[in-house]
């Protein structure tokens, strides 16, 4: 399968990397020869030098026999024109475009078959806003991913010294059977899919699969039942900050938004009804103190400056803010920032990569969500009649080490499996697995990781 990727920025680079690792035929197109040279040292992909808006470059990259085009540059216009060209050069290929501008996104007809024919629109900003709002609903968790339309949630949280989990063997944990399950543990930079003998230590990041209807009870048992978020402090009045503020406007929350630009502040104050707009530098400790950011339940740092965001969140945390969400776009910063003790670090480019990969790898495997820098994945797959996994109670199934069955969806029913649970054909399974065991898992499920099945 041949995939053309326009734009060798961070998004394009990571998609190319993942796909080439999975043995796909990738052509990366970028007009910056320096970038291409640097990447070519790391990646086993083909390169084309030139603009994605040039029909000749696209032809030379072999668009005629390509199966898919991913337009992932930072420019909406380049992405849209690439898709338009692709449509005329190869009628049958799938097209994925990264689009940021809300004005374009509002014009739904633009993307339909007759005009651009874009099969998937990736808008990192909207995805980011959704993630932030989702996280606000679960105040104790630092990550939250929805499965099966929100009926199953994956929550990630840091284990504190006081947590009932701390120092416990997983097999010794009682009371979660049937409602929640530990799916992964991150210690330092390492992620592991646990077995019963593993022990949870303080400062671990634990991922748990929880049935949505028992979320409250589970959070309470975990001492994560934090009070609702009432005081929100947004630093950075860019498009993301504004979108979050708008979503929270008029919900009875005390929301403040800080920006250093006077004109921008005026615009924000005009658009927002009940959100207080504060003009000032978010990295100014005195301003944060004066506006009592330390009393905030949630500080969201989304300024245009990566380093400032990290610094602001650390400042706010130091002043006593309950929780912080930090936007860091540079993927190379992620491991360092994660180790700094920030609650939630969101990376819009990473979300874009995830969404594109999920789309590309659809098939029998229904969806894949990469966890923690891609070391592990959450896979949604269907249990087939022919599979070994079907009909036997789970304790008799030879599940590969490094993989765990997190949830079973049977029609409307959600089952968090126990040792004596049996999988039936046509069940949808949510499995968490380390990357290296995915092939073993495929064998077990008798599903090849097919593409475009």
């Amino acid at each position, binding site marked *: 399968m041949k995939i053309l990727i326009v734009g060798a920025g961070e998004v394009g680079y990571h998609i190319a990397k993942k796909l080439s690792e999975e043995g796909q035929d990738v052509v990366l197109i970028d007009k910056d020869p320096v970038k291409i040279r640097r990447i070519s040292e790391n990646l086993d992909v083909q390169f084309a030098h030139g603009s994605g808006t040039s029909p000749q470059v696209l032809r030379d990259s072999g668009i005629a026999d390509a199966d898919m085009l991913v337009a992932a540059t930072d420019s909406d216009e380049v992405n849209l024109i690439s898709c338009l060209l692709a449509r005329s050069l190869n009628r049958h290929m799938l097209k994925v475009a990264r689009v940021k501008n809300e004005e374009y996104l509002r014009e739904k007809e633009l993307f339909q078959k007759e005009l651009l024919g874009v099969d998937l629109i990736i808008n990192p900003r909207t995805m980011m806003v959704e993630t932030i709002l989702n996280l606000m609903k679960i105040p104790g968790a630092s990550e939250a991913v929805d499965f099966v339309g929100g009926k199953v949630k994956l929550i990630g949280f840091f284990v504190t010294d006081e947590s009932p989990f701390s120092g416990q063997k997983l097999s010794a944990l009682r009371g979660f059977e049937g409602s929640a399950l530990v799916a992964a543990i991150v210690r330092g930079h390492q992620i592991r899919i646990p077995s019963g003998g593993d022990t949870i230590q303080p400062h671990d990041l634990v991922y748990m699969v929880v049935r949505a209807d028992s979320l409250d009870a589970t959070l309470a048992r975990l001492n994560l039942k934090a009070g609702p978020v009432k005081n929100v402090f947004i630093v950075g009045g860019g498009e993301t900050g504004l979108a979050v503020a708008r979503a929270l406007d008029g919900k009875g929350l005390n929301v403040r938004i800080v920006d250093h630009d*006077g004109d921008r*502040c*005026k615009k*924000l*104050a*005009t*658009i927002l009804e009940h959100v*207080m*707009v*504060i*003009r*000032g530098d978010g990295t100014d400790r005195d*301003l944060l103190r*004066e*506006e009592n950011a330390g009393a905030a339940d949630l500080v969201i740092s989304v300024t245009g400056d990566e380093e400032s965001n990290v610094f602001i969140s650390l400042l706010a945390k130091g002043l006593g803010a309950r929780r912080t969400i930090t936007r860091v776009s540079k993927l190379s910063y992620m491991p360092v920032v994660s180790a700094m003790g920030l609650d939630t670090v969101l990376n819009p480019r990473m979300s874009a990569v995830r969404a594109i990969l999920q789309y590309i790898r659809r098939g029998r495997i229904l969806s894949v969500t990469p966890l923690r820098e891609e070391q592990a994945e959450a896979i949604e797959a269907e249990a087939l009649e022919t599979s070994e996994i079907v009909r036997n109670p789970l304790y008799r199934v030879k599940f590969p080490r490094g993989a765990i069955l997190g949830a079973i969806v049977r029609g409307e029913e959600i089952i968090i499996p126990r040792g004596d649970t049996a999988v039936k054909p046509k069940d949808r399974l949510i499995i968490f697995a380390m990357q290296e065991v995915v092939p073993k898992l495929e064998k077990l499920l008798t599903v090849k990781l097919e593409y475009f099945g």
Partner: protein
Amino acid sequence: MNGRLIAHLLSVLVLVLGLSMVLPALVSVWYGESCARALFLAAGLTGIIGLAMMALSGRPADRYLSHRDGVAIVTGGWVLAGLVSTLPYLLTGAIPGFTDACFESISGFTTTGSSIFAEVERLPRGVLFWRSLSQWLGGMGIIVLSIAILPFLGIGGMQLYKAETPSPVVDKLTPRISDTAKVLWKVYVLLTLAQILLLRFGGMPLFDAVCHTFTTMPTGGFSTKNASIAAYNSLYIEIVVIVFMILAGMNFALHYKLLRGNFQSVRRDPEIRVYLLIFGALVLLVTADLYGRTYSSAPEALRYASFQVASILTTTGYVTADYERWPALSQIVLLLCMFLGSMAGSTGGGIKTLRMLLLVKHAYLEIVRVIHPHAMTVVKLGKTAVSQSVLRSVWGFFILFIGIYVLGVLLMSALGLDFMTAISSVATCLGNVGPGLGAIGPMDHFGGLPLAGKWVLIACMLLGRLEIYTVLVFLMPRFWKD
């Protein structure tokens, strides 16, 4: 200044007034009154004055109107109309003195409704008709003034409405006035016809129905009865009048939008909501105050409270009850209504809902800024930010309004008037309401005031009607220098 053009346009105004004076003369003929001759004479004299002015001003070559010319025409027009229309009163002998005639005619054209007559029912119908017609014509002037001219001149924060005006031309004063006038006068005439029909339907005689409609739509308040609307003692008539007073107190640009089926923008209008809210809240407050004290039944208290509040808040000035017998709270509420006034862009007077709304919002945000010194606060009207220049203009208007009020009260009390009369006469005239409290209460008249006091009030009526700024600029030496 383009003096020739100003004189020419004012001569047209005088001619129109002369023509309209023929109407009361015809009414007089119809009823076989002896004053018909005097009314025709007044019309003729006015016509001659108009023609003389036109001849003297010649044919103005330059048709360009500057901001300053606009102000001169507005103020000059109202003063001139007030002076010319003393003629019917003086020639018929209805009012013998010039000061009283001037008071009555300025009160008419500014749609105030304060009267020097103790007994109006004795007056010939021709004179009564002219009294009402002068308010109706004044109302036409006010609509154009407040929706087309003031927003353009940027006076008193009304530049906010610059874009609201139903006119295709935004940047030129002259086409704007004529286009807007045509559209809005249609609305005005339509509402007038509707009210005449509804009042007739309630059994009011045609003459009374026309006269009262002519003084309801411009929120004037002159009545053909000594007891005002109370003379009919009909709940139906009172309800019709309340509804039309409230309608007249609404921005006429909104009426125009309503007629074009644009309900959305009316529903979203922030000012109308506050206007109706203030009306509802004050009616409830006064009703609660009256119930059990002045009136024994709640419906009765509601009936009189709502009429009086509607009448004073919209600055019309009809009465159905002697509110001087009401408890102090209700009287104070009515006094405050004289300051509040109705919506901007209506025929009503006072400070106006829009300005009050902006002032309250601005003051609130200033308090917020004490707690959050870095907060960026923007005064908003609906979804749009109100510019600093508008706010400055509104604050300026407010200060001038209160300043002139205080000065007026000082003058009135220096003339020997009692406390209640002094504070209410200036409020009612500056707000273009009509009746006041004390010696000029709902059952009294302004005839007994000292001569100088009448001139103070005449000045107040003009200042209030012309949004203060347009009159005060004439006092600036700079205005006269080119």
